[in-house]
């Protein structure tokens, strides 16, 4: 099986987010960057599918700054075979520009599967995977929590409000992965050492201007200071009164 996994370098989920001097982007000082958690499920799934199928390849593709090479090395340490960095100083605000750059790279090979995390925990775009599928004319199932492949057919389950959609699709396909699909492995020391010698190609990303202009990155509105209503079950009637009369939510 020949599988491409598109990943992203993101600020760790414990980051205290501060706006940088341009007023439009993250202040990266002191921020720890990691492999996007949803992409870990994609990397893990690719490795399992390749291992089950025998011969094949798992290639990691990302768009990002030079430092994203470290993120690719993390995926290589998990067991992927090679990496490609489409280098750009900035990740585009318009996800379609990212999708176009990835699609241009991906269409050079024939893949059985192209996997993405369902979203990145920084920009919450939730869009690059299905956009790449559209650009490549491939079937796509997003946010999958369960996957079965039999020959050239697949069945995936995806969470919808109040249930699970059971979706059938043919290969080749683009899939985006959700938590619950698998339990991603930790890179072992041997993998980390091996990853250093695996091929990692760096080339410039071709990016257009895009259709989104960032005006400002703002802190979320402060919540007004709340109050402790009281202690223990005796405080419940007062809480109910406040919810009805002050907050007017009951």
């Amino acid at each position, binding site marked *: 099986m020949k599988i491409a996994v598109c990943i992203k370098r993101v600020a760790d*989920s*414990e980051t*205290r*987010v501060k706006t940088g001097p341009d007023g439009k982007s993250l202040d990266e000082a002191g921020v720890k960057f990691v492999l996007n958690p949803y992409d870990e499920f994609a990397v893990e799934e690719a490795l399992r599918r390749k291992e089950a199928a025998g011969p094949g390849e798992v290639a990691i593709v990302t768009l990002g700054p030079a430092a994203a090479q470290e993120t690719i090395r993390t995926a290589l340490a998990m067991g992927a075979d090679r990496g490609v960095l489409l280098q750009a100083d900035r990740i585009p605000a318009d*996800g*379609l520009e990212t999708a176009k750059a990835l699609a241009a790279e991906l269409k050079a090979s024939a893949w059985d599967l192209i996997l993405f995390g369902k979203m990145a*925990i920084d920009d*919450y*775009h*939730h*869009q*690059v995977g*299905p*956009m790449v*599928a*559209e*650009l490549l004319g491939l*079937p796509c*199932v997003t*946010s999958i929590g369960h996957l079965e492949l039999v020959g050239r057919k697949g069945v995936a*389950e995806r*969470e*919808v*409000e*109040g*249930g*699970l*959609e*059971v*979706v*059938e*699709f*043919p290969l080749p396909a683009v899939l985006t992965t959700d*938590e*619950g699909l698998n339990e991603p492995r930790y890179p072992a020391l041997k993998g980390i050492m091996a990853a250093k010698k695996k091929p990692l190609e760096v080339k410039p990303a071709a990016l257009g201007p*895009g*259709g*989104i*202009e960032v*005006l*400002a*990155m*703002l*802190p*979320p509105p402060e*919540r007004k200071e*709340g*109050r*402790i*209503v*009281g*202690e*223990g*079950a005796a405080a*419940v*009637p007062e*809480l109910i009164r406040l*919810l009805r009369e002050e*907050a007017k939510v*009951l």
Partner: protein
Amino acid sequence: MSNVLAVLEQRDGTLRKVSHEVVTGARRLADGLGGSVEALGLGTGAVRGTESLGAFGADSVVTATNAAFGRYAPEGFAQAVAERAKAGGFGAVVFAASATGKDLAPRVAAKLGVALAADATDVTVEGGRVIVTRPIYAGKALLKVKLTAQPAVLSLRPNVFTPVQRPKAGAAQTVSVSVAAGRVVVKEIKAAEAGALDVAEAPIVISGGRGLKEPANFKLLEELARAFGGSAAVGASRAVVDAGWRPHADQVGQTGKTVSPTLYIAVGISGAIQHLAGMRTSKTIVAINKDKDAPIFKVADYGIVGDLFDILPRLTEEIRKLHG
């Protein structure tokens, strides 16, 4: 290019409530752009509930029908919406950022060759351009962006755009479209517990954390949810999801769902930064925790300090009285 297309959602032939929010958001944009709102349903026939959309500001309702549109058909829906968007020359196309909208909107944007601003919590029009505010880093920051391409394609976070009655005499028409259903086929929807609400869409969310001590004690939260008469969902912190007490679908936080209910009740949750990120846009927050210094009390409007095993049954009893 001043008209707005509002893409509706249905399940089993009935309009989903989130569609009222989509029409409300679309109306707001159309007022700013000086145009009208066309609501677009997709189904095997007329979608029940669309007749009421005039009241929320839709000028017209169009239903694209296809024998394969009983369930969500990703490729067929995307084709039908993109064709309608092109044919109608719309200035904006609005989706819900629901499970379906998150799947459908990027496909449509890619077909139209334009950007998608996903998960908007505010929309305005300035100088004829659509401006979207959307949470990033799970709500630890907001990004304000201008959509410079036509049409502006955006999705709205559920529960944020409170439906507003804006009566318009909408003329409903049903259009049959002929599109291939596509290669990706939804075979069935395995329903969760009957009537179960999703935490991302419920108007009331009651979340539990480590303070509940063991998985079985979540029944206290479920009883409280039931006391609200079907408008509440039970959520969970990452700690208890990681421990396997609750399914991932219920997780509220940066690596789970971001929610904006009218009322959020955090029970036995200390308030890690990644949890707070997922619920701080709730309209009213109540925290119940035995530690008076827990960070959750910093974002809560109302807090009760004490033993949740005493407090919850009393709260459930009082809520039952209100809804009884």
